[in-house]
């Protein structure tokens, strides 16, 4: 867990409004504390941030220097200016939302989120119209960090990446707790759960949640 020194405050700004962060807070933590909305998908308070979905990008400016960063991980420092809606941020967010629409076209949550930012169609090729998973890896992190069993992982790399169990067979390490289903932001894990836990009727005894 983060070691937080609650006494020390960091002064910076978000969209021109003065902001104060406690030591250990990220830009996202501070923005939420102030009631400023930044969209997120792969972020969950129960696990360490991973910065995979890139939806929570903001622009950090310091004089002439400027960089697009992910707010879920970026630690603010004294005097930095954060912009949640600059042109650069909008460009990244628009393209990321289009990518999401192509990645998981079957997800209602993603469609609603994209529409919120005015993105209704995608220029990317849709490979699987049934796909709901956007490979944010939240399920994998919850399984490892919270449940502590590592029953699922992200396999392969690049465009072939997928969530699966080792050797793609049901994994006896799975305790069928359902945490992965709960945290999944698009509902994709629901359909995969049986492939992970296998035949529940055959699974009893120690370490099993049901």
């Amino acid at each position, binding site marked *: 867990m983060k070691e937080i020194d609650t006494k020390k405050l960091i002064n910076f700004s978000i969209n021109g409004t003065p902001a104060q962060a406690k030591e250990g807070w990220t830009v996202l933590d501070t923005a939420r504390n102030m009631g400023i909305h930044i969209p997120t998908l792969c972020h969950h308070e129960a696990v360490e941030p991973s910065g995979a979905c*890139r939806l929570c990008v903001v622009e950090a400016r310091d004089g002439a220097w400027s960089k697009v960063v992910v707010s879920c991980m970026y630690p603010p420092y004294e005097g930095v200016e954060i912009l949640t809606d600059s042109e650069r941020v909008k460009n990244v967010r628009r*393209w990321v939302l289009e*990518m999401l629409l192509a990645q998981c076209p079957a997800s209602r949550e993603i469609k609603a989120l994209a529409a919120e930012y005015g993105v209704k169609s995608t220029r990317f090729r849709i490979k699987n119209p049934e796909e709901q998973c956007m490979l944010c890896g939240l399920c994998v992190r919850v399984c490892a960090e919270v449940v502590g069993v590592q029953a699922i992982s992200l396999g392969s*790399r690049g*465009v072939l990446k997928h969530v699966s169990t080792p050797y793609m067979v049901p994994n006896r390490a799975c305790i069928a707790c359902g945490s992965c289903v709960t945290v999944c932001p698009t509902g994709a894990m629901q359909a995969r759960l049986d492939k992970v836990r296998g035949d529940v009727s055959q699974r009893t005894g120690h370490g099993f949640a049901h």
Partner: protein
Amino acid sequence: MERITSIQQLELLKNSLQKAKESGRNVVRVCLGPGCRAQGADKVAAAFRDTVRQQGLPVKIEPLIKETGCHGFCKEGPLVTLVPSGLFYSRVKPEDVEEIVEKTIKKQEVISRLLYSENGTSYRTANEIPFYKRQMKLASRNVGDIDPLNIEDAIANDAYQAAAKAFSSMSPDQVIKEVEISGLRGRGGAGFPTGRKWRSASNAVKKRPGPVYVVCNGDEGDPGAFMDCAIMEGDPHSVIEGMIIAAYALDARQGFIYVREEYPFAIRNLTIAMDQARSVGLLGKNIMGSGFDFDIRINRGAGAYVCGESTALFLSIEGKPGEPRAKYIRSVERGLWDRPTVLNNVETWANIPVIIEKGGEWFSKIGVPGSTGTKAFSLVGKVKNVGLVEVPMGVPLSTIVEEIGGGIPGKGAFKAVQTGGPSGGCIPYKLKDVSVDYDSLTKIGSIMGSGGMIVMDDKDCVVDVARYFLRFLEEESCGKCLPCRLGLEAMLEFLDNFTQGKGSLEDIEELKSLAKAVQDGALCALGGSAPNPMLTTLEYFREEYEAHIVDKRCPAGVCKALITYHIDPEACTGCGLCAGICPQSCITGEEKSPHKIVQNACNRCGLCMDLCKFSAITVS
């Protein structure tokens, strides 16, 4: 060899080894670098050993056969250098060996056939050859000179002297100070000041006492780059010594060298070098009797390009999937196993002993302000002298390509140079006099990178080059973040279309907007810099992109969908060679009369053009 238990003992050993070396004994250095080995240098070395053994030469003449690392002049390999005469023989075949022993070694006669010649001049020694003249070897100082599998040879060439100097007369703080003064910047690509990195790590340890690690990044994966390979193979001790010095400065106990599995000789040579260093007390417990313990372990990379990225490399060493993480907290504070870690590239490590031995001040005077020292490059592509070069920073690019590289072979015209690998940019001919240093290259949209330098001529299509690098990165993307996983795939689709004459001018604008989103949005430098080759070629060669899209034409004659091969009836002698080799059997014609290509059957493989002895086949 006896165990070295004091610094004086190392000094004595070095002196006696040097004396033996200077005794005038004949030495035959056979280059076994990657280039020469591929051209059969191991057979040449074996032939030398056999011949010498069979002949039973008198002790005074009998040469020592030394298999060394890369001599650099790969194009002329296999290379053989003779000591003490300094004679430099190129393109040596096993059949030449007996003659060399008979004539040169026994009678000191020069075999002029084996000397390197250029424009009618033949050169007796390496230093006279234009390829070597402008070079300056610091990081690769002993590469090609020493036998990497023999620690005595390395010690005779001053290996471990800098570590001894640091142990005996410098405080850890002074060591860091010296590296800071040198102005050395990371040779892996980003160019972060090494001294500042060490200082930050040293401060981080003071704040959070506990283990600290030094790591060497030998995961050189850029297409066409082999500088680090040559150093690890040819002089592994320079890397080990550099790491020992950093370990002393930071009080580290454990180091790691991450080498890609594709470099089996680098792994072998490093392992043997480390074993030898350990057995003589230069690595491991109580180094040189100083009471200081430090050891190194080799981790082999399993073939993921992204594991050359620092945070992915750490995860890979920890045994986890190599996926980068955001670097808002630097690895000097939280790196390997969440502890302060100094990660440097092979070439950076190899520079450290020189800096400690000769002083940071001395080093800082080489090169240009802001980019001190030298840089090794692997010069490849459409250039006469393909090979490994090391030059002071700040030399013009044209010097490397035209003087050292000897310019473009054949009738081709110098078009561009790709520096920095897939993350770098394409430098056009009109900017050929740019100073090769970190800041100048960044200013024109490219990067120094780790040192790959790919020269292109007018037969190379920039759209195809951009597509090649993008495809490489799309395959190597870890897939953690969306902009890299899907963005690169979509960018590649645009470029695939362009090379087929599809797409529109609006597509170029859309591609640029997507490229910006990928640059800004990607998690690590792999994705963030992936659009660079495309963006620089688009900036400097926009007309070539437009030729593909608007005129449906590939000016360089590369993109298969847009070219046709023709036979010039004037030049064709009707020899029939092309018709015989054509895999589609689509070349027809009578013997001794001009042939023709049946266009709809041609698959544009270009074999006929490569083979034709009369330049009768043209592409348009």
